[in-house]
């Protein structure tokens, strides 16, 4: 089974808005303290699931990312976790692509890889919170798509049984392969890179594929980000005082009772 996992390098999602800054073009959010970027959490879940499927079925896991040269770090991490190969899709003209554009490039990358049985994407990226690249990708590759997946219950050579998370319930579905799945965090706990994996990662060559390698022309976007505004909170709670924790607990109950909330 050949599984491709799309991974994105993102700003660490634990950074609060008070530590974010918007660059001069107002088109990009950066970490004000220069905190290191990380692998998108849902993509790490996707990679973990791919590695588990490989353990059962054998085969190969390939991680690809679209990003700048620094995104190589995230691919190194993917290899250190256990991906067999990786490719960096990088070209100056791809810096401001929208979801459709990103999917167009990823689709070209996946076609170059050749026969693929399963594509796993994170359900969304924690920076854009976009949640649509995977669907465009599925359309471009003509694959059935289901997202967000919280369980792969059964995996065979030609189909998977998966659980799709809905608002109040789960759908248990049988999806024919090849297919594309959007993976959610409930599915697994991603492994940490092993020391051996880290050594392998330093030795693994990661090719760069650009617009001419992939034969991708200019892509007209469908959505353009015009402005980004950081939502800084300035409020401050009224602090309930009391001699000790228990006294504050009672004072809180009194307060809420006065407000008619209890």
């Amino acid at each position: 089974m050949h599984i491709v996992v799309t991974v994105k390098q993102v700003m660490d999602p634990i950074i609060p808005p008070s530590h974010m800054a918007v660059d001069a073009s107002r088109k990009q959010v950066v970490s004000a303290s220069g905190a290191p970027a990380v692998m998108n959490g849902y993509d790490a879940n996707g990679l973990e699931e791919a590695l588990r499927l490989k353990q059962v079925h054998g085969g190969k896991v390939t991680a690809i990312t679209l990003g700048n040269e620094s995104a190589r770090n995230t691919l190194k991490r993917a290899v250190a976790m256990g991906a067999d190969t990786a490719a960096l899709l990088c070209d100056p003209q791809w810096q401001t692509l929208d979801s459709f554009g990103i999917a167009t490039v990823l689709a070209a990358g996946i076609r170059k890889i050749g026969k693929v049985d399963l594509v796993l994407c994170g359900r969304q990226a924690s920076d854009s919170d976009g949640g649509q690249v995977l669907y465009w990708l599925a359309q471009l590759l003509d694959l059935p798509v289901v997202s967000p997946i919280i369980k792969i219950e059964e995996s065979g050579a030609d189909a998977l049984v998966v659980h799709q998370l809905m608002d109040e319930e789960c759908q248990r579905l049988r999806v024919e392969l090849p297919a594309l799945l959007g993976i959610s965090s409930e599915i697994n706990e991603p492994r940490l890179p092993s020391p051996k994996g880290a050594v392998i990662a330093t030795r693994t060559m990661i090719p760069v594929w650009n617009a001419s390698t992939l034969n991708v022309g200019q892509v007209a976007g469908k959505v353009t980000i015009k402005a980004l505004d950081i939502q800084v909170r300035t409020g401050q709670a009224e602090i309930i005082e009391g001699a000790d924790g228990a006294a504050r607990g009672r004072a809180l109950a009194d307060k809420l009772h006065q407000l008619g909330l209890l």
Partner: protein
Amino acid sequence: MTGILVIGEMAGNAVTKQTLETVAAALQLSVELKQPVSGALFGAGDLAGAAAQFNCGFSTLLLVESERLEQYSAQQSVTAALAVIAKLQPSVLLLPHSARTRDWAPQLAAKLGSGLVLDCVNVVVGEDGLAAVKPMYGGGVWGQHVVHGEPAIITVRAGVFDCAKPDAGASIERLEVPNLAPNPRIEHLETIVNEGTDGQQLKDAKTIISGGRGTGGQENWHLIEEAAAATGGAIGCSRAIVDMGWLRWNHQVGLSGTIVAPELYIAVGISGAVQHLAGISNAKTVVAINNDPDAEIFKRADYGVIGDFKEVLPAFIEHVKGYAK
């Protein structure tokens, strides 16, 4: 192409509250764009009752009724939406943002080649055209997304707009949609309804007691349960608790959980990450119990108790029980 189309959603035989909020967003946009609003509903059985609730300021209201729509499938929703769009030729399609629409709206956009923005809090008209305001970075940043091409497809977050009021203005038409069928490559085996949903859905709860990593999960969770019982509240949690495997995902409040709107939200041992706060922006009164005076949650909370919840909650619970007597 002209006009704003809202495709509503139903829970049982009624349209959802969020559907009416989405209509309100459409009516606001209609003033700016000077274009009429129409509506459509898909479902199994007779939709007349739901249509009456949904009929708010529309020029046209289309119903797609088919027993095949009993079971949700993305492809069926896309097929029905394509038929409605072909008939009405709207310039904008607004949908309530839900687990279903976040699944089928992108597949509709991909079929149409349309611009799409999911989970928006506003839609405005500027010099560059239609722009959807979308929370990003977990909610820490709002981005103005200009959408090119028609129809622009936008899903609207729960709880941002007030509900529109029905006026029975539009006459109701039924639209036959042939070849409604799920994707042959995706077979529906079963719908798994939550075991252990505690009767009170988070979405509609008036009071929610929510625990986070600071509760330690398992060991002291009985305090959260007792506080919920004493206040008549539902139990929520942060993602940390779900990640620990302590509660199921249907209790998670936040961006990737449920967006709630209670009168009273009590966050116990929750730090206040943006992704969590995204779920409580419509909570009326927020209380935080946390032993870190610098926790972000205190910037969102109306009332704060600085302290160890193991000391605060037992006294709080006893006192609340006293009021009940």
